[in-house]
């Protein structure tokens, strides 16, 4: 997306661009709070944060409708939040509390929400792709014009489930939007150390699926591409594939000493921080005053602080409930 296109987007609908900025800030604050609460030992297990990649979820979520479905990975707090899962329910889930969106049974890597059709939260790399194909198959067989959006990292591209799923979706012409979040690393394995062909959009196109590469650090570019792709998918043009080029600013998880990349590389990418870039573009065009910016931040801080308070005040699921939800609860006939 050129500077002129950014300018045009800002001028034509500054309110909407500020909304996208706010969405990204919400994710960042949520993630920062998660890290803090992890350090305070309130959150345990594996924790993977999305800091640096916010433009991807913010852009895509803004392009989809309320009836569409979302399938994500273990780095999904931001996706859940922007899909409409309450920060309270997310934070309480990470605290392992009964008020969490999964009653404390999922944790950070397994956020689910039926009301917003948020199907997780999958901690098996590429494990969610076949589910997305099936959700779309159900829609197609039932004649519904819903779209299933499936997020996964570039690490998933090496898995068989990736290839099987893209092939099935393309073969059966299913309404899926595949969103590959290419942040260049799968834990410590750089893309060029795991793939013979590192152009992922090109690789996907081998399955005869429309695939584009998108600047994943630019929320306007992401939103625009996602909107085009979603419209096409919904209109019956078959599955689409977006390779969103992005970068994670933080460690893979809370256990990662980051031996595999140079600090300078991280710093170079941080110059392209999606939040800072959009903020300064808005300011340049006189569409974000200092007051507006601090009000935006204040509002987000309040939301996240409230989520922490909610989680702090949460309760533990009674251990008597341990074995619930292994099988469905059937009411006696």
């Amino acid at each position, binding site marked *: 997306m050129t500077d002129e296109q950014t300018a045009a987007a800002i001028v034509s609908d500054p309110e909407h661009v500020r909304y996208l900025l706010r969405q990204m800030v919400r994710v960042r604050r949520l993630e920062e709070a998660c890290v803090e609460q992890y350090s305070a030992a309130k959150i345990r297990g594996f924790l993977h944060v999305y800091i640096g990649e916010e433009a991807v979820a913010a852009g895509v979520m803004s392009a989809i409708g309320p009836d569409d479905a979302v399938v994500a990975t273990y780095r999904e707090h931001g996706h859940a939040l922007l899909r409409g899962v309450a920060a309270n329910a997310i934070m309480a889930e990470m605290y392992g509390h009964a008020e969490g969106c999964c009653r404390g049974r999922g944790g950070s890597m*397994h956020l689910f929400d*039926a009301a917003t059709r948020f199907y997780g939260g999958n901690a098996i790399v590429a494990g969610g792709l076949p589910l997305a194909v099936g959700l779309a198959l159900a829609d197609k067989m039932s004649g519904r014009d819903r779209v299933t959006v499936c997020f996964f990292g570039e690490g998933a591209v090496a898995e068989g*489930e990736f290839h099987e799923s893209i092939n099935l979706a393309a073969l059966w012409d299913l309404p899926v939007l595949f969103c590959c979040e290419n942040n260049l690393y799968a834990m410590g394995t750089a893309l060029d150390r795991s793939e013979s062909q590192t152009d992922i959009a090109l690789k996907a196109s081998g399955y005869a699926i429309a695939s584009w590469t998108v600047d994943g650090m630019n929320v306007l570019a992401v939103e625009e591409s996602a909107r085009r792709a979603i419209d096409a998918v919904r209109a019956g043009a078959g599955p689409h594939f977006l390779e969103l080029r992005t970068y994670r600013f933080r460690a893979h998880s809370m256990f990662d000493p980051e031996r595999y990349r140079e600090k300078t590389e991280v710093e170079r990418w941080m110059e392209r921080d999606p939040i800072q870039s959009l903020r300064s573009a808005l300011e340049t065009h006189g569409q974000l005053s200092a007051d507006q910016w601090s009000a935006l931040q204040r509002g987000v801080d309040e939301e996240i602080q409230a989520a922490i308070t909610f989680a702090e005040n949460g309760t533990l699921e009674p251990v008597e409930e341990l074995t619930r*939800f*292994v099988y*469905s609860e059937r009411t006696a006939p």
Partner: protein
Amino acid sequence: MKTTYREAMRAAIREAMQKDDRVFLMGEDVGRYGGGFAVSLGLLEEFGPVRIRDTPLSEAGFVGAGIGAALGGMRPIIEIMTVNFSLLALDQIMNNAATLLHMSGGQFNVPVVIRMTTGGGRQLAAQHSHSLEGWLAHIPGLRILTPATLEDARGMLWTALEDPDPVLIFEHGSLYNVSGELADDAGSVDIDHAVVRREGAGLSIITYGGTLSTALEAAETLSGEGIDAEVIDLRTLRPLDDAAILASVAKTHRAVVVDEGWRSGGISAEISARITESAFYDLDVPVTRVCSAEVPIPYARHLEQTSLPSSERVCAAAREVVGAGG
């Protein structure tokens, strides 16, 4: 009416497809080819390619897609050609189908049915002779069915489709050609209970699926020797019908468990443990197991037959437990 296990299974699929628009069959070669074991022969012509859906060789992909379609409101019947290939889909079965309801705190149940052929005995060698239903019965969140009779082949599918959670149906490869009489009005059956297939007071032979006929044959031989064996068909390996097992053992005080899986860590070990835990003082002698030899199942007929449970081995085990102890 005279029918076969294969035809009974096909009739069950046909009925489910007619009854419920959400039901569809998906798997490798289920359509044009007519099914690897000809179970779905003719269904493509009857229901068309959308509902009798041929898939590529992508076990993880189409099993996962079935799970996703179930989440999306459909009632898929997924056919995995044989249990041997289900290993490529084990991630989807174990990490998605079995866990989603619990991980989501009760929000997302997975009403999928996955059918597959299991077992050895047809000289197909090590990679095509596995009996892994006991393995899968290890997994909470799944229900494991092993129809061994025409009635169960005809009746278990619909009940499985009505179950809100994932159900795996294991069809022993040696059963498809079994023929016999089936009531014209045969329909859905319960999938919660084991059944006594032969009453007896001298010992309990506990088995399921492909080895039910082995056990019944052994019981027949034993009766000629004055040994009165009861034969229990478990029908469902998860959840196990403990009450039926324990009731039989309380009556006979002796148990032989017959299972085509390997002995170490198998379903027969689980059954034996449950009997020991709950009915130890009812037993006159220790529980005995007849399982497959601990080898990859070999090709040569004599080696394969020696590896698998046979009625001779069941008889020998029975004589031993009857002869031993009080």
